């Protein structure tokens, strides 16, 4: 018999960010005293430059049914713990360095195997379809995870408008590589620009989100502003940030991490607890903010929606 019944948390019951931050400040204050806290802010550069950038609400965002009933990862963690190598390889680097990124004006070229190629300004992209808030799990290939309220719409909305031809088997995403504003691009940690790709059916899947916001606001630069991809059933590196070109192609694109280390990062990169990274296990993950590790779910918990895309494929071979 269950003595304590613990229902799933409704999204309406999720602690708002402001309240959470207040609680966090309170706990910090209680632990070390207000004086210590003030000095701590001077010593610890967690409130990074980009994190201090002005924040802008997105208008007309409606809630979406694509929402997991799990506790949100705090805004502070979502915006200061990032992998965005164009701004440095440390998790704290993007929040420190990404303030240099110019997100206006911004255009995305959509081209390749389609009837109506187009160059879209970011303003057009924001108006192309109604903005939805979707709470997705994010699972990084490094075995940590978050739950994030993204704002955007299905990538398929955009792709449909350019009318892909029958030859469009894959979609290639090219992201900005500007050595002027991106210190990481001046180094050689990866081959720039960062390129990612999806099979056309993956790209057209309603879960695949073209993302312009987070927490109801315009995306912070360190999270891939002004427009990025979020593919929740794949490891985070598939979700390209700061996209400048979307190309419909016939052949499987060469993607950045796959080119760099093909034995470790496959093209598909579906979250799979049974296929380990060569250097570490993928069976478990640490949800940011939690102490104990939790089990990683097949397709990051989206198996019901996406497993059918891979029927008959050997997922050990096509990792």
């Amino acid at each position, binding site marked *: 018999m269950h003595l304590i019944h613990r229902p799933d948390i409704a999204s309406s019951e999720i602690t708002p960010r402001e309240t959470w931050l207040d609680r966090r400040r309170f706990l910090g204050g209680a632990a070390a005293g207000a004086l210590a806290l003030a000095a*701590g802010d001077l010593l610890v550069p967690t409130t990074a430059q980009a994190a201090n950038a002005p924040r802008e609400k997105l208008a007309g965002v409606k809630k979406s049914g694509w929402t997991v009933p799990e506790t949100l990862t705090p805004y502070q963690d979502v915006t200061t713990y990032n992998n965005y190598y164009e701004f440095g390889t440390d998790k704290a680097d993007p929040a420190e360095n990404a303030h240099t990124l110019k997100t206006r004006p911004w255009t995305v070229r959509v081209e390749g195997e389609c009837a109506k190629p187009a160059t879209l300004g970011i303003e057009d992209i924001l108006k192309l379809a109604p903005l939805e808030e979707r709470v997705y799990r994010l699972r990084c290939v490094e075995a940590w995870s978050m739950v994030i309220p993204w704002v955007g719409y299905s990538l398929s909305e955009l792709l449909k408008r350019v009318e892909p031809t029958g030859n469009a088997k894959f979609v290639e995403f090219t992201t900005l590589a500007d050595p002027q504003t991106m210190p990481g691009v001046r180094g050689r940690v990866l081959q720039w620009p960062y390129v990612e790709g999806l099979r056309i059916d993956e790209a057209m899947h309603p879960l695949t989100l073209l993302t312009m916001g987070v927490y109801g606001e315009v995306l912070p630069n360190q999270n891939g502003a002004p427009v990025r991809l979020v593919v929740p059933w794949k490891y985070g590196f598939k979700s390209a940030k700061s996209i400048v070109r979307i190309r419909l192609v016939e052949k499987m694109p060469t993607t950045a991490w796959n080119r760099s280390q093909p034995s470790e990062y496959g093209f598909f990169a579906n979250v799979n607890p049974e296929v380990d990274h060569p250097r570490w296990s993928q069976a478990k993950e640490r949800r940011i903010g939690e*102490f104990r590790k939790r089990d990683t779910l097949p397709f990051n918990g989206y198996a019901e929606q996406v497993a059918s895309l891979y029927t008959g494929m050997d997922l050990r071979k096509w990792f």
Partner: protein
Amino acid sequence: MVPAADGATPATSANSASVRPGGSRGLRALRIVLWIACLLPLARLVWLAATNGLGANPIEFISRSTGTWTLVILLATLCVTPLRQITGWTELVRVRRLLGLFAFFYVGLHFINWIVVDQFFDWPAMLKDVVKRPFLTVGFAGFLLMLPLALTSTDAARRRLKRNWARLHTLVYVVPVLGVLHYWWLVKKGVQTPFPYTVAVVVLLGWRVLAWLRGQRKVAREGR
């Protein structure tokens, strides 16, 4: 140049009658400085933990910090002999144990953080990882090799082990190599953070090799 006998006859230099029990004033000052310096990384972690400053992934932060400081202090330990030879300040050998034990202290924290906080006593998973993941295999081996060094660091153990003490303690040359390998195997391709530590290990071990070669040549000359 001061004769180089790296750790070969430490008992005689440490016990030599000319050295006062507490060491010179300079040595005592250096000891205090090193104590403070070696405790600072821990103080910083405690401070950050108390002020919510460990970031989004505190467990990873602690792991990286204690791992990095283990490596730094290990390398500092390996600096003692070259510095002694360069400066001629023979007393310097008497801070070596202090540094070595602090390196062990931080690797201990690193290890406990892994077992308790990161893995939460999931023994099967840990065992599997140590066997299967090269970065954990070498990291674990490095930790195991440091154990006997820390356990035999007392004067009594050194007296009891006689010549074997110096033999045993040559393991200190292996540990940082394992530490650097552990680091390289851990980071993603292209990340260069382990590079400076690698250079330091190569230089410090290279120094020993050169000193040994010089010694061999001297022996050969004198034997003629």
